[in-house]
C-alpha cells in the first residue's frame, strides 16, 4: 500500500470503534424500535410481528396521551423561561465581573458534579412537611400546622429549574464572553444609556447562547421522568413517565416503542429547527 493510501485510511481506523458503537448501540436500535412499534403485544405476553397500526392509533388519538404530552411541553416551557430569567443576569454578572471570575465559574460548575438524584431529593428537606421551610414558619408562629408544599406541578418545575439552571448560565456565559466589551462602551459614548446599549448591542449578540441554553433546558426538561416521580404528585406524570410505565411496569414494549418515538419526534424536531437556524457549533461550545 502506498504511503498516501495508508495516510488516508488511518483516520477511519481511528474512527471505526466509536462509529461502530454509535451505529450498533444507537442508530440500529432506533431503527429497530420503529419496526417494533408496528408489532403487537398479545395477551399472552408474546409479540406478534407484522404491520399493525394499533399502537400508533392509540398513542396518537387517545386524549390521555395528548394531554400529558401538552402538559409536558408546558412544564418544559415554563422551566426554560424561568431558567432564562434567573440565569441570564447571573451569567452577565460573571462575564462582566472583574477579578474572581474563575471562582464564580467553578462555583457554578459544582452543581453539575453533584448527583441529580441528590439535588432533586434535597428539596424534600426544604419543602417537606418536616422540612426547613415549615420549621421556620412554625417557629415564627405564622402557621400552626405543617403545610404540605411538595408533590405538585410547581415543585416539579422547581426541581427541574434547579437541575437545569447551570446549563443555561454556562451557555449564556460562553456567548457573553465572546462579545467585545468595548462595543457597549462605544454605544454609550455615542449617547445610548447603559440599559439601552445592553438592549440593543449585548442582548442581541448573546441570543445564540440564550437559544442554546434554552434548547438544552427544554429538551432535557421534557425528557425527564425522575423529577416528577420524586417531587410530583400522582397527577403530575410527564410523557417520559408514560414511556417508563409502558416499558417497565406494563411490559407493553411495542406501545412503549411508539411512545418513545413520539417523544423523539417532538424533541428531535426542536433540535432540527435549532440546527437549521443556529447550527450545532454554539451548542458544542457550551457543552465542551
Amino acid at each position, binding site marked *: 500500500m502506498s504511503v498516501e493510501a495508508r495516510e488516508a485510511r488511518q483516520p477511519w481506523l481511528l474512527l471505526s470503534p466509536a462509529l461502530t458503537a454509535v451505529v450498533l448501540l444507537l442508530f440500529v436500535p432506533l431503527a429497530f424500535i420503529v419496526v417494533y412499534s408496528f408489532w403487537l403485544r398479545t395477551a399472552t405476553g408474546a409479540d406478534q410481528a407484522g404491520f399493525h397500526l394499533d399502537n400508533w392509533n392509540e398513542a396518537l388519538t387517545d386524549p390521555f396521551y395528548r394531554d400529558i404530552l401538552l402538559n409536558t411541553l408546558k412544564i418544559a416551557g415554563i422551566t426554560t423561561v424561568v431558567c432564562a430569567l434567573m440565569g441570564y443576569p447571573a451569567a452577565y454578572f460573571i462575564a462582566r465581573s472583574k477579578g474572581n471570575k474563575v471562582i464564580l465559574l467553578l462555583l457554578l460548575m459544582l452543581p453539575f458534579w453533584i*448527583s441529580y438524584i441528590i439535588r432533586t431529593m434535597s428539596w424534600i428537606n426544604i419543602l417537606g412537611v418536616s422540612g426547613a421551610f415549615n420549621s421556620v414558619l412554625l417557629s415564627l408562629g405564622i402557621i400552626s400546622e405543617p403545610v404540605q408544599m411538595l408533590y405538585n406541578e410547581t415543585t416539579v418545575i422547581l426541581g427541574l429549574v434547579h437541575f437545569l439552571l447551570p446549563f443555561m448560565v454556562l451557555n449564556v456565559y460562553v456567548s457573553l464572553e465572546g462579545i467585545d466589551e468595548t462595543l457597549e462602551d462605544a454605544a454609550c459614548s455615542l449617547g445610548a444609556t447603559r440599559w439601552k446599549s445592553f438592549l440593543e448591542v449585548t442582548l442581541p449578540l448573546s441570543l445564540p447562547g440564550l437559544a442554546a441554553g434554552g434548547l438544552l433546558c427544554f429538551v432535557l426538561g421534557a425528557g425527564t421522568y425522575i423529577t416528577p416521580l420524586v417531587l410530583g404528585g400522582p397527577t403530575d406524570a410527564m410523557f417520559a413517565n408514560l414511556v417508563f410505565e409502558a416499558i417497565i411496569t406494563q411490559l407493553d414494549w411495542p406501545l412503549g416503542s411508539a411512545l418513545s418515538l413520539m417523544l423523539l419526534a417532538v424533541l428531535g424536531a426542536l433540535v432540527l429547527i435549532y440546527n437549521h437556524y443556529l447550527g450545532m457549533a454554539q451548542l458544542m461550545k457550551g457543552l465542551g
Partner: protein
Amino acid sequence: MGWNLVRAWTILVYIFMFLPVAVVVLLSFNASQFGSFPMTGFSFRWFVELAQNEAILRAFRTSLVLGSLTAVVSTALGVLASLALVRYNVPGRNVISTLLIAPILVPEVVLAVALLLFLNFLSINKSFFLLLLGHVIFTLPFVILVVQARLVGIRRDVEEAAMSLGASPVQTFFQITLPLLAPAVFAGMLFAFTISFDDITGTLFWKPGGVETVPTQIFAMLRNSISPEINALGTVMIVLTVGLPLLGLAIARRMAAARGG
C-alpha cells in the same frame, strides 16, 4: 444601581443553587431519629449506619466498577475518534461529528428504550453488560467533546520532529503523543466516570432486578420516607463527586506543569 441589582440577583441565584445541598449536608449530622428539622444535636451516627448498610455498600461497589469500566472503554473509543477528527482532514467531518454526538441529542429515555429493546431482541437480557454498553454510548459524546477541546492545543510539530529523528509511528505515539495526551485522557475518564456514577435515567431501564447503583439505591430508599441515612449518603456522594473532579483538576494542572507546558 443596575449593576448592584444584577449582583444581588446573582447572589440569590447562587443561594438557590446551594441552599438545598447545604441542608442535605447539615441534616446528615442530625442526631435525631428522623431525617428532618428540628436538629436535635450533632452526630456521626448516620454515617456509621451507612457504613454498616450492606445494600448501600453493594450499590457503591456496583457504581464504582461500572463507572471505572465505562470510563476506560468510553475514553479509549473517544480518544481514538478525537485524534482522527482533530489530526486528519477527514471527508465529511461535520457529519461524523454530529453522528458521534448523537447519543446526547436523543433524549436519554428514548436511547434507553431503544437499546434495551434491541438488545433484548438479540437475546441480551437486562444485565451488568447491558448497563455497561448503555453507559458507554451515553458518555462517549461527552468524552469526545472534552478530549477534542484539549487535543487542539497539542502541537503537531513535536511528533513530526520525533519522526524526522527516526522514531517509528508507533514509537512516536507511545513516547511523544500519549504523554502529551495524558491530561486529555485523564479528563475524559474523569468525565465519563462522573456521568456514569450519577446516571439514573437510563440505569433504571437497563439494570437487572436486584442490582442497584448508588443513584437507583437512593431512589428506592426515597420510596419509603426520607431517612437521615439518605442525607448521609448524599453527603458522601457530594464529597466524592465534587472532591474527585477538583482533585483531578489539581493533578491535571500538576501534570501540565511538570511537562513545562
